[in-house]
Structures are given as structure tokens and as C-alpha cells.
């Protein structure tokens, strides 16, 4: 701190305890302590604890006494890896691991792309831009339960479902389709839903960066005779590189971890079973908490692999640049 009050020097030991710096540090710890305790107690400790659970046999019977649960080594992990719901079984049944990866990458790419388009759109001055920006945030702030159920209702398999009605009127389909109960199509729709819901997040971040861009860059490009497309490609995009990269990483992590969206849309059926939903099924449907924890640890492990790969690629890129 820049403030230092000089008082007459007290005896050495008490000075250290009583010095302004020491008092400030104690105050600082007192201020962060409640937050630190809650985050440690309900996030960090449970996270470490779940490593232990994943090596133990924990069911409903000994849930109240986990610390004495029998240690079973890698049995839970073997159980998960050999489970037909987890493992790749060929193109008819991808298994949760592969589905998770495909789902997260596709949804994240689509989210960032839509967010980029939306932010370029809202960066142009026009009447009513403020209200448009607020409206664009709706999918992101509305409760997941509401929007998931509206989408299910729009995609309803009966002829009275909106999508069925529209497509039949247009003559694109003859019979009503069960969109969320068709393998393949269900996964595509879940990915589209994800992009619909989360593109405003990407949009906000990109918009903030776009508005901080230096206008002289564009003026220079115009002097050089650049077209709109060229300006976007050679000026805007390079300037957005880092913000796009960090949004991609954040959204990839969160999409990979997401339970609610798929659970509410398909319940994890019809080729949309992802690792978080599978974790739920192991833990709270078959009450095999050890296996659930092992599955969650594998999820985290896959995520970490992507994180490390990403950091390495980004690091290499910055070194080259």
C-alpha cells in the first residue's frame, strides 16, 4: 500500500505483528476467508474427495459412511470403460465418450460462429440497436427449463408440432417426424439448440472487443482500396483472434460439462448420451456412486487433455507471431 504512517518504533516483535502491513494482511485474510471457506468446502475439497470415491465401492448402503468404504482400486474405471454406454460400439452406437467430444466441439464452433455474425451485425449503427442487443440476449438469460421445454414443444412429434406443421405445409416432409427421437438428427438438434442458447455469450465478448478496435486501421485499409470482405478478413479477424480463442476454450469446457441441456431435451436417449448425463445415470439411477465418480474423473481427464493441447497450440502460435 502506498499509505504508510510513521509512528515511533515499538519493540521489534510487536512491530511485526502490529505493523501496518501485517494488519492489512490480516484484514485481507479476514475479508476473503468466508468466500475461501465456501469455495474450498463445496468445490475444491469435494473435487479432491471425488478422486477417492472413484476408487471405492460406494452405494446407497454406505453413502453415509464413505470414509470407510471398501477400496476397490481400478474396478470402477474398468466398469466404466467396458460399459456399453461409454465405449465406442461402431457408428450405430457411439458411446458417451465420443458423443461428448463431437457434441462439444460442434456446438462450440457453431456457437462462436453465430456469435461472430451477431456481433458484426450489432456493431453496425442502426436505429433500435440498443433494444436489438437486449433481445439478442434472451436465449442466454432465460431459464434453461423454460427454453428447453419450448423447443421440445416446437419439435413435438405430433402433426400439431410447429416444425412438423411448417415442413408439411412446405411439402418438405409427408409425415410428421419425431425429431428428438431419431438417432443422428437428435444429436444435430441438440447441437443447434446449444448454439441458439449460448451464442449471445460469444456475441457479448466479441462485441466488447470490436468496439475497442482502432478506427484508423479501417481508414488505412480503405485508403488501400480494401473491399468490405477484405477488411473483415485482413483487419477484423486478426484483431479478434485472441478473444475468439478464449471464448472457444471457455465454451468448450462448459459445454463438455453441461448436464441440464441434454437431460431436459432428450434425457440422453437416441444417440445423445454425453458423459455428464452418464455420470448422473451411474450415480442416481443405478446408485453406483463409485462408478459415477470414476466416469466424472474420466470426463475431467479428457477435458484436461484438450486444455493442455490447446494451451500448447496457442503458445506455439504466439511464439511464431
Amino acid at each position: 500500500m502506498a499509505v504508510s504512517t510513521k509512528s515511533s518504533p515499538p519493540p521489534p516483535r510487536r512491530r511485526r505483528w502490529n505493523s501496518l502491513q501485517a494488519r492489512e494482511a490480516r484484514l485481507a485474510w479476514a475479508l476473503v476467508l468466508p468466500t475461501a471457506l465456501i469455495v474450498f468446502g463445496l468445490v475444491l475439497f469435494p473435487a479432491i474427495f471425488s478422486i477417492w470415491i472413484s476408487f471405492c465401492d460406494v452405494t446407497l448402503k454406505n453413502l453415509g459412511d464413505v470414509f470407510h468404504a471398501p477400496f476397490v482400486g481400478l474396478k470402477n474405471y474398468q466398469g466404466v470403460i467396458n460399459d456399453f454406454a461409454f465405449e465406442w460400439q461402431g457408428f450405430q452406437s457411439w458411446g458417451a465418450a465420443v458423443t461428448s467430444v463431437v457434441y462439444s466441439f460442434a456446438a462450440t464452433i457453431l456457437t462462436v460462429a453465430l456469435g461472430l455474425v451477431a456481433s458484426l451485425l450489432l456493431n453496425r449503427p442502426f436505429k433500435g440497436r440498443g433494444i436489438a442487443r437486449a433481445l439478442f440476449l434472451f436465449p442466454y438469460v432465460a431459464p434453461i427449463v423454460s427454453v428447453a421445454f419450448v423447443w421440445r414443444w416446437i419439435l413435438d412429434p405430433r402433426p400439431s408440432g410447429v416444425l412438423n406443421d411448417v415442413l408439411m405445409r412446405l411439402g418438405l416432409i409427408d409425415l410428421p417426424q419425431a425429431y428428438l427421437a431419431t438417432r443422428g438428427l437428435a444429436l444435430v438438434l441438440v447441437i443447434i439448440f446449444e448454439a441458439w442458447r449460448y451464442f449471445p455469450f460469444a456475441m457479448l465478448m466479441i462485441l466488447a472487443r470490436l468496439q475497442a478496435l482502432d478506427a484508423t486501421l479501417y481508414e488505412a485499409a480503405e485508403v488501400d482500396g480494401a473491399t468490405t470482405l477484405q477488411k473483415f478478413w485482413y483487419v477484423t479477424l486478426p484483431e479478434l483472434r485472441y478473444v475468439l480463442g478464449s471464448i472457444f476454450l471457455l465454451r468448450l469446457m462448459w459445454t463438455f460439462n453441461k448436464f441440464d441441456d441434454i437431460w431436459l431435451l432428450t434425457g440422453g436417449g437416441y444417440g445423445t448420451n454425453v458423459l455428464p448425463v452418464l455420470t448422473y445415470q451411474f450415480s442416481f439411477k443405478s446408485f453406483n456412486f463409485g462408478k459415477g465418480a470414476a466416469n466424472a474423473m474420466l470426463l475431467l481427464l479428457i477435458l484436461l487433455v484438450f486444455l493442455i493441447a490447446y494451451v500448447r497450440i496457442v503458445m506455439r502460435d504466439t511464439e511464431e507471431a
Partner: protein
Amino acid sequence: MNTHKSTPCSDEKLNIFEHLARRMSLWDFIAVITLIFFLIGILFPFYWMTSSSFKTYAEIGGREPTYIPSALRLDAYRELFDPANEHFQDFMSNIINTIKVSVPTAVIAVFLSTLGAYAVARLKFKGKEFLLNSILVVYLFPGILLIIPIFAMLAQLGSRLGFEIQDNLVILILTYLAQTLPVALYMLANYFRTIPVEIEQAALIDGCSRLEVIWRVTLPLAIPALVSVSIYTFMIAWNEFLYAFIFLNQRELFTMPIKINTIFNDPSPRPHVVMAASTIMTMPIVFLFLSLERFLTEGLTAGGVKG
């Protein structure tokens, strides 16, 4: 954008496309089309939710969808709120439960994160970097991974100390705090750093204590950030599904999301009731956002809000 070359008005007859071509450039045209596309895609589901909530059971169950309800029928809302209705859902108690969880979450989160954020932004102490990094790790862990150990841990603690972990709204508030505090702390700390230190130093020299400085100087200057943090934490607790889904079993304690899920999964489907309940749950959030949009956009970008 390239400015169009405006030709002086002539009497020749123009069709609509030629007319448009004179008024706007190609890029303006693409922008308008894209904007319309986005607005329909975003707003139609919300229109469909609200309009479906005002339909009768006959309109909702017909062979063809009813795009515009014949009248504003309150059948669905009666089912939710009218005790005399044969399918009475007692949705009021769910609304109250949700408020009981989300308001304390917002208040406590703002209070605790203000204290923590001030320490992080202004005070020097050992272990600050470690603390900040370990708090950020929260971003990495999926909720579903944490719920198993939390469940096991609290079950043990609960049987020792004599409290229930299921159907306990206090437990729910604590788990929401754990999810929201890190982001709230980051958002506020970022904001506090933008407040000039000199103002605080002046107050310190005038003889205020640190806590007085926070209360009298920093907080009044940080009101926009405090508003966005409280709305953000409120929104997370209001919308939360997974933890409530696992921790609540008694119908009387259900929060709105769990109740809506229950109505949806009822053996006899009643979509108009689901849509009415969803409308009720969505409206407050959407209105909060529309009215406080400017604060919130700033806040959301500052913290990289998790969702």
C-alpha cells in the same frame, strides 16, 4: 459502409427491388436479412411459450397448431394457482421457494464477494495468487462431478450434526454460493481496480478505517458493478436445475424449475400448463434484463459469466 450514390428522384416506375437497391448497399441488404433471421429465431420460441400459455386444452391438443390463440384463456394459469381447479398445482409455493433460495443467494453473494474482492483488489497479502488461481479452478469442474462428493460429505456431516441434506433449502443456497462467489469476486475485483486509489487514500488520511472506506467510498462508487453482480447471482439461483433436482424430493419444497419438470413429465401431458409456468419463470428475468441491460452487459463481459 459504402455510401450509396443517390440519384435524384425520377418519375420512372421502379419495382421494389430496384427501389431497395437505390436505398441501400448490398451489405446493408445482407445485414437486414440476417437481422430478421436472427430476430425470428430468437423471438419465436418466446412468442410460442407465451401464446401457448393462453390456449385452451382443445387448442393445444388439436391436430394443427394454433398460431394465434382465439382469446386470452386463463385455463392454464387457473390450473397453476386456483385451489378449486381439479388439476391444482399450487405453483405459488414453488414461486415462494425459488424466491427463498435466490434472494438470499444474491444478497449473501454480493456481501461476501464485496469483502473478498476489496481485499484482492486493494490489499497485499501472502497467498493471494494461489487463492485467485484455486478459485478459478471452479470453472473447470462440472457440477455433476461435485454433486456426488458433496452428497456423500454432507450425508456424513448431517448424520453427525443432525440436519437433513435432502429437502434443505439452506444446503441449496450454500451450493449456489459456491458456484457464484468466484465469478462475483472476479467481476467486483475488476471493477474496484478501476476506482482511483487516491480517493480511498484521502479517506484513510482523514482517519477512516479500512471498513469505513469500503462502506463510505468504494461501495457508492461501485454501484453499477454491485447491481450486475446481484442480478447475475440472482439469475443463476433462479434458473438452477441440477442441484435442486438432486437435493429436493418433497413436492412442497420444489423450486420452479423442478416443478415445471414434474408437470412436463406428468403421464397426461399438459403443454399449456408447462408453458404458463415457464412464462411466469421467464418473465421476471427477461424484464430485469431489459431494464438494466446497460449495467448487465458490462458486468457479464467483465466476469466471463459461467452458464
